[in-house]
């Protein structure tokens, strides 16, 4: 959880290098969070307690979701059968409150972002669940900890195409959920490209810090699943596995940075097609693991 904001730093550095710039320090996100935490806050006159509840619920759900997820050799705090469903719905809970907080301001800009957010996340949801179902069938487990731990080099030997498709499907979900190019542009909120960034336009100070940190955790969360599939080596030593997982996560960050640098943002209508394609990819992965 401590490393989560670092991932954004790596993405930004990768993008800067690709663009020929020096770029901001790797630890910039930490600086930002610290700065925001020390500031006061401005609230809109239109808003109610929903606006203040949004960041709190968002961050709390992300913390709970991360606690349900294993990392490297470390198991989740409370692994149980069906925890993957709970994780997906905790993301939904966070989104629900972020969207309501955006609507609470009465601003058309934020409502527009909220509208797009619910559209794309509704379409990303089947892709996520089918991807998880493919993993569940592959590993015959319904709990994230044993599920992700049992993906080994042997699994890859057996079912490389299915795992590859699952990564592709979940990769699109990763980009969409974390507001990355080609779905959303994390660097701007003023053009008509806006989705996530514009929803949080009116938050300030500690509230905004919570939102930023929750976003970092969300990226960490979905990244963890992808890394666990893509890095199937297990040494049995938690420390070693943990560091290989962190290395994998940084790899994901670099790949994301490269994708962001090499692609333009898609037209809004095309995004639906991209997300449906992700669902199809996950569905194909499922078809491949059927006996």
């Amino acid at each position, binding site marked *: 959880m401590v490393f989560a904001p670092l991932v954004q730093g790596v993405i930004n550095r990768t993008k800067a290098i690709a663009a020929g710039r020096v770029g901001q320090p790797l630890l910039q996100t930490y600086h930002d969070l610290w700065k925001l935490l020390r500031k006061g806050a401005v609230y809109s006159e239109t808003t109610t307690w929903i606006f203040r509840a949004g960041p709190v619920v968002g*961050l709390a759900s992300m913390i709970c979701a991360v606690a349900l997820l294993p990392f490297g050799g470390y198991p989740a705090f*409370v692994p149980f059968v*069906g925890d993957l*469903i709970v994780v997906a719905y905790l993301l*939904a*809970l966070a989104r*629900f409150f972020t969207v309501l907080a955006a609507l609470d*301001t*009465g601003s058309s800009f934020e409502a527009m972002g909220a509208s797009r957010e619910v559209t794309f996340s509704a379409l990303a949801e089947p892709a996520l669940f089918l991807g998880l179902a493919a993993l569940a069938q592959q590993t015959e487990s319904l709990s994230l900890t044993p599920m992700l731990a049992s993906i080994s080099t042997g699994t890859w030997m057996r079912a490389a195409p299915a795992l590859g498709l699952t990564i592709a499907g979940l990769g699109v979900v990763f980009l969409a959920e974390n507001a990355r190019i080609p779905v959303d542009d994390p660097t701007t909120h*003023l053009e008509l490209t806006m989705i996530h960034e514009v929803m949080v336009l009116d938050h300030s100070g500690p509230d905004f810090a919570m939102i930023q940190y929750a976003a970092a955790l969300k990226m960490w969360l979905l990244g963890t699943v992808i890394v666990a599939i893509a890095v199937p080596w297990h040494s049995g030593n938690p420390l070693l596995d943990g560091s290989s997982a962190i290395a994998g996560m940084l790899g994901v960050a670099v790949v994301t940075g490269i994708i962001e640098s090499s692609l333009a943002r898609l037209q809004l209508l095309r995004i639906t097609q991209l997300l449906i394609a992700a669902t199809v990819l996950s569905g194909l992965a499922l078809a491949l693991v059927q006996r």
Partner: protein
Amino acid sequence: MSALVIALLSFAVGAIGALVFANHGRWPTFFGVGGVLIGCLCGIIPAVGVVLGEPSQSLRMAWNIPYGSFSLGLDPLSGFFLIPVFLLCALAAIYGADYLEAYRGRKALAPPWFFFNLLVASMVIVLLARNGVLFLMAWEMMALSSFFLVTFEDEKESTRQAGWIYLIASHIGTAFLLVLFILLGRASGSLDFDRFAASSGAGLLFVLALVGFGTKAGFIPLHVWLPEAHPAAPSHVSAVMSGVMIKTGIYGLVRVMMLLGAPQAWWGWVLCGIGLTSGVIGVLLALAQHDLKRLLAYHSVENIGIIALGLGVGTLGLRAGLPAVAVIGFAGALLHVLNHALFKGLLFLAAGNVLHSAHTREIDHLGGLLRRMPRTGGIFLIGAAAITGLPPLNGFISEFLIYLASFKGALSLDAAGSVPMLATIAGLALIGGLAAACFTKAFGIVFLGQPRSEHAQQAHEVGLAMVLPGFVLAAACILIGLLGANVVSSMTPLISEVTGMSAAIVSTSLSTAANSVSFVSITGGALVGIASLLALGRAIALSNRSVSTNVTWDCGYAEPSRRMQYTASSFAQPLTDTFYLLLQTRRVLSAPRGFFPKDASLATETPDPYQEHIFQPLFRAIGRDLLLLRPLQQGKVQLYVLYIAVALLVLLLWQLA
């Protein structure tokens, strides 16, 4: 059983009392509410008892009707459906007492209380009846009493129209049930449920039950009456109809499936298919609506779809001999019946408060109501989160069970067998995402932002009697969310009866599910704890810093007109465009022209595509053909006497031949 009979008597006293004292001021309300309250209090005790494992009871009395017998029975299945009936009806009656006061002087209040008591009594008899004739009579009484409640505001053309659609739809459904019961009773020569024997044509009987009960439950495309009748009815009646009355359709389906014996695999496929279409199309149509109560009505279609998905998964598990899948699937479906009654009742009552105080159901005319109606807004939020299936509330628990059953089924079945399971998983995920979109829209546009009209501007919080029932329902939603594990394990007798498996097997499967559910509740508790800590931390951090309020920044557009806020239609537009094929949303656009455009407007409308393209043309054609019979009606008495004579003659000849 005696408590239930007392309950029925209490409803009768309430109904008749309301009529007898019709012209005595507040007495009809007193009798109406009192009858329902006393009856529900008496009834709920044995209902809860039998669900928790007390022995089943029955009562049989002679009845002077061919094939009829007044036989009632209380078993876990009946009891489980009775609990929400008693709970929600009692709360709705308390609510209705205040709600209908607004009509005093303009409308007679005795008839609605008469019919309300009749509706509750008929639902109870439907759930208890163990004889086909009694069941159908109660079923008919339920349809008629709710018809009169729907048409309460009969001075409105739209209400009368809604009433007719409802009456016709429910009778078409009953026609199928009539055939079903005749076929069921043909073998044994009796219409008593316990003498029905599983006959050879089980498939046909299943289809008849599906259509007949599906019309009441609201399976697509038989749902067309729901979005008409629910908005037209007074809000406490909508809550009862949507929360519990349509569930009698699910009850009937489950009951008949039990009577039919071992299910066939295609039943499960059909149920999953119906569940998927009802769920996805229901929520999409809801998303496209501008009328708050119509939106909620379409959500009932969606939730009935979720229930059908659970039933389908359970049936497939039963067929494939997978006890865990069957038990958890049925448990999820039935728990969702209870949950939906709680949060849908809550939402309709809250919507009633909005209508009562802002005088409009038009979502795009509302806004900013959370500040003006904080209590109503709070309970609506809980209902919205629960119906979206968000943890840690009750809706998530039942959806979680259905997911769990489908995942387990997909793991243990072969490729072909796991197709409906995987479709259920993907479908539930999509439904969940779309429901989130729909309820962020409903809550966000109605309660947040700034008022979009004068009506909304002047809205005020309603009286205590109209929010208290909502508080009780909201508390129930939270409690089931946090005590889900206890609820799930207490369903053993019920699931054992429905699946026909031994209590030991059922309780093993349920306890594994309950174990997961307990972790869900722990996560939910942790979530609430962490959120409170974060809020506390923020409060401490901000305590000695500058905290100011200002207008919404809005990228520099300080204080634009309130009408410039995003509307519900624009919020839903990306999704309605994506699913245009299923929705056929119409747009009427008069674009701005010239250098100084004066008026431009855009109106969107999503009528029910099934109503538009299937039922309207069909009924219009039938109506046209029936005109051919018109010459028979000449209005002359002699002619009618002749018809009677001819009919008698034909009957005589037929009897002789």
